[in-house]
């Protein structure tokens, strides 16, 4: 069959459409394919120009690369053959490009060229370690065609006189911007149609009032360290992310909003009252994620909540956690054991599909008894997926007194998939025995961060299950090896990893490279 060059027969617009889906840098490389491909570059509707200093090259030798980079941007923008530009992204390291007036004028001219071509999405990211900041030309704030604006590590000045005319602006992202307190405020207030707003690490902002933005759907305020007060009144808000970040308290006021579906809160200064009011003000909340809080009493009571992600490293063993979420599908918890364990018995887990529990290393292991963890598995048996990270320190926790065995309720069989992460502790054998007293999962995954020695012990236990375990005949509940019908290693990766661990002579230097999965068949 004769090989024909079909791609060059495509209409130019179609070929350009294809190339616009390829990263700009690769399209520049592809100029070498043929002369017609070389010419297509200037017809691209979007450009992303970024230049990373090659590690192998000392900075002095990079000048050729740098100048070709600068020329590429220059010619792409000034010789551009289209009337309009969809998107321009520039990642500029001012230490390399230069921060003198010549470089700044050059960058000004690029932005100018983009604005002239009615650019819709403008993404300017600067890096300046030693060089001074780039000052954004005020023309950007009069660009009527811009729908998406992203600015990173540059400066701009907005004062009372500045005329802000951005009627098409839907999405605004400001990162590491240093400006006057009111500049961002004025910018936001001048763009009533904004749907997506993100301010991250913007020093200088002391007060942020987001109101009258009836179209605002997504708001992220992250680590704006000078923030003293933040008021949010956005009736259409669906997603809110707030990372407080600083060591001084800020006033947080959020007006209730019926459309809010996702709330992410990292705020060590939030009070119990505020937290309660917050939850009651968002009746349709589906996702709640909390981190970095100092609350001692956390009560989460919500009918609609589907996903809960709690990182409560500061909630001590004596802390109170109450969860009443009948529709909860997914729970992620990172914190001390006791607060969660006390919640488990009252937790409504009928809808719970997946659970990811990480207990941090703490001194409260004395309270963690076998019965409590048994309850835990009982509650979780509807879950498709359980990820469990236990931090077991003392062997007291592991031994089940013989006299207790008969009265223990039977192990939970319905667990579909249990992920286990075991840190360095002692008595792995006892721990495995105890685990299988409590539950009999169908798939057991050993997480990558587990101690390889645990895996070795587990594997040997599985392999030796044919050997007669020494259970007394008088014992009505036999140990788990009696009930394990079959064990299979699931997948080539798992198999290879097990081989590697088993054959290793010295385990103390080894870490696991990947997760290892076993398929278990139990008889009841």
């Amino acid at each position, binding site marked *: 069959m004769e090989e*024909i060059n*079909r*791609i060059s027969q495509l209409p130019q617009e*179609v070929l350009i459409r294809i190339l616009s*889906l*390829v990263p700009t840098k690769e399209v520049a*490389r592809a100029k070498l394919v*043929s002369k017609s491909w070389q010419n297509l570059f200037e017809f691209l509707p979007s450009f992303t120009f970024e230049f990373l200093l090659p590690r192998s090259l000392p900075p002095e030798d990079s000048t050729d690369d740098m100048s070709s980079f600068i020329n590429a941007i220059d010619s792409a923008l000034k010789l551009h053959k289209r009337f309009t530009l969809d998107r321009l992204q520039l990642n500029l390291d001012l230490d390399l490009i230069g921060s003198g007036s010549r470089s700044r004028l050059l960058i000004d001219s690029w932005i100018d060229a983009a604005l002239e071509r009615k650019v819709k999405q403008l993404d300017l990211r600067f890096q300046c370690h030693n060089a001074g900041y780039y000052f954004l030309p005020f023309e950007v704030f009069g660009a009527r065609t811009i729908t998406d604006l992203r600015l990173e590590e540059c400066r701009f000045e907005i004062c009372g006189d500045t005329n802000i005319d951005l009627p098409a602006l839907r999405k605004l992202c400001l990162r590491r911007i240093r400006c006057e307190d009111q500049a961002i405020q004025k910018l936001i207030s001048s763009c009533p149609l904004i749907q997506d707003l993100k301010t991250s690490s913007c020093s200088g902002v002391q007060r942020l009032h987001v109101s009258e933005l009836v179209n605002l759907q997504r708001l992220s305020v992250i680590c704006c360290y000078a923030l003293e007060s933040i008021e949010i009144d956005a009736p259409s808000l669906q997603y809110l992310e707030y990372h407080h970040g600083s060591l001084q308290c800020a006033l947080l006021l959020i007006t209730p909003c019926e459309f809010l579906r996702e709330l992410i809160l990292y705020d060590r200064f939030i009070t119990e009252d505020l937290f309660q009011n917050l939850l009651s003000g968002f009746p349709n909340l589906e996702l709640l994620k909390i981190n970095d809080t100092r609350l001692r009493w956390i009560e989460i009571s919500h009918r609609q909540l589907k996903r809960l992600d709690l990182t409560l490293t500061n909630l001590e063993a004596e802390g109170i956690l109450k969860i009443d979420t009948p529709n909860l599908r997914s729970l992620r918890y990172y914190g001390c054991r006791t607060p969660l364990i006390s919640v488990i018995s009252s937790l409504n887990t009928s809808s719970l599909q997946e659970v990811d529990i990480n207990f941090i290393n703490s001194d409260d292991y004395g309270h963690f008894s076998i019965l409590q963890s048994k309850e835990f598995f009982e509650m979780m048996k509807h879950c498709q997926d359980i990820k469990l990270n236990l931090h077991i320190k003392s062997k007291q926790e592991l031994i089940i007194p013989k006299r207790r065995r008969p009265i223990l309720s039977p192990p939970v069989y319905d667990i579909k998939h249990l992920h286990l992460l075991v840190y360095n502790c002692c008595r792995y054998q006892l721990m495995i025995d105890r685990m299988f007293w409590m539950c009999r999962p169908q798939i057991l995954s050993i997480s990558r961060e587990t101690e390889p020695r645990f895996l070795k012990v587990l594997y040997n236990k599985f392999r030796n299950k044919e050997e007669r375990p020494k259970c007394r005949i008088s014992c009505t509940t036999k140990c788990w090896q009696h009930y394990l019908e079959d064990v299979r290693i699931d997948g080539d990766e798992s198999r290879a990893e097990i081989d590697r661990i088993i054959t290793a002579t010295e385990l103390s230097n080894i870490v696991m490279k990947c997760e290892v999965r076993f398929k278990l068949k139990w008889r009841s």
Partner: protein
Amino acid sequence: MITLRSSDGETFDIDEAVAVELQTIKHMMEDGCAGSQIPVPNVTGKILAKVIEYCKKHVESGKAEEQAASDDLKGWDADFVKVDQATLFDIILAANYLDIKALLDLTCQTVAEMIKGKTPEEIRRIFCIKNDFTPEEEEEVRRENQWAFE
């Protein structure tokens, strides 16, 4: 029911709901130009069949909102574009002529994936493109675009 006739005389009956996915046909229907049979002169029967298959599948799946159904559809799309290069380009031309945005996006993305990560020489080989640069010209283009060759 709308009847389309391919360049080689094959006819295809499709529901109106499917026909409006082909914007070109939709406009003809709106303008009242659509007679009993709408000719599609640039597209052979083999390719028109594929195009209609795509549109039918997407019209049916359009009703499902579930994540699982959307994942299934993505899988179906991925299988749909596993064809030889000639067919792929024919589908692109057909989707372009008939103005079916989703199909054009899918097929263009497929070709883009074939280009990504390849050297110019590899691209030439995949698409049978002749290198019309002299060695000197090639060297100059490479030098001008040095920043792109790390």
